[in-house]
């Protein structure tokens, strides 16, 4: 059997990500609209997207900039919602650990929920693995380009949509769309309910700290339920 060339792997990766684009393009569009709705200039919105390349981080930063939050709170909130990337980084590093640092840095910069999900899938297929990092690059670069295009369209169109359409609500709805599949177990549900309750109860805290306090409370609740279940 011949070893697939880097080019073959790259193209196969680009093809494999295509169905996922269906979900990512509208999300990118919403992120673009949200940046305009939050008062960012088109250049700022585009720069945020090109440099951070994370829908959730982009949305939360927009929301906090609109609420005039302090710089450090906005950055901390983006870090908290991006903590899952640390999990992903740990999960895929066994497949990529043999690569030179610049390859690992590039794939890390381009990492998304989608590319993370596809990396173990491709590496666990039978056959020669030596060029499979090109498959990861193919999925990542394709998603990156389509994402930036979707954000750009959102920024251009978002500036023309009147405020009475309440498009800022689309941002909250996007978070609902992400929340539902994130709740799979009773412990997840406990984490979500406690975090929601604390976020409302602690809303009076300064510097938008309610988000941080609520997240920690939710995580603690999830871990408590998980521990209780194991000890039965």
């Amino acid at each position, binding site marked *: 059997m011949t070893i697939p060339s880097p080019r073959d792997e790259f193209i196969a990766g680009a093809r494999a990500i295509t169905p996922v684009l269906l979900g990512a393009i509208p999300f990118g569009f919403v992120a673009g609209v949200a940046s305009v709705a939050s008062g960012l200039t088109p250049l*700022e919105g585009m720069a945020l997207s090109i440099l951070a390349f994370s829908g959730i981080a982009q949305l939360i930063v927009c929301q906090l900039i609109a609420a005039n939050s302090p710089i450090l709170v906005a950055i901390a909130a983006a870090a908290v919602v991006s903590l899952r990337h640390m999990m992903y980084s740990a999960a895929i590093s066994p497949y990529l650990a043999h690569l030179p640092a610049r390859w690992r840095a590039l794939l890390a910069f381009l990492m998304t929920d989608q590319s993370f999900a596809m990396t173990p899938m491709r590496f666990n297929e039978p056959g020669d693995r030596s060029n499979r990092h090109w498959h990861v690059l193919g999925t990542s670069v394709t998603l990156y380009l389509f994402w930036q295009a979707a954000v750009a369209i959102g920024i251009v169109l978002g500036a023309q949509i009147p405020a009475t359409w309440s498009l800022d*609500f689309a941002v909250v709805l996007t978070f609902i769309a992400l929340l539902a599949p994130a709740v799979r177990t009773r412990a997840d549900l406990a984490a979500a309910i406690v*975090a929601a309750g604390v976020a409302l109860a602690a809303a009076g805290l300064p510097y938008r700290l309610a*988000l941080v306090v609520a997240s920690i409370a939710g995580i603690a609740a999830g871990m408590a339920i998980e521990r209780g279940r194991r000890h039965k």
Partner: protein
Amino acid sequence: MKTWLVIFGVALVTFLLRASFLLFANPHKFPHAFRQALTFVPPAVLAAIVAPGLLMPQGTFDPTLANPRWIAGLVALAVAMRFRNPLAPIAAGLPVLWLLQWAMG
């Protein structure tokens, strides 16, 4: 200026988190409790963002019928649990909000 500081700060932290284990650490030496805590980050953080967005749209707690956002949000949540398509809750929630806003004048 402030916005640009946020943008560069966010770019840096998102990259460092993504690069964490790929560049700087051995993934097998991670404490179990920390890994477990990371799995609860998505439901906790997302719920903490959604709840105030639905129930405190003007900054104060408003669970009344004068606030259509939590009603539209509940519809969107039900749709999101039923259909895994990420577009479904947006396609359901926005029209419900528009309808309620129109009905309330």
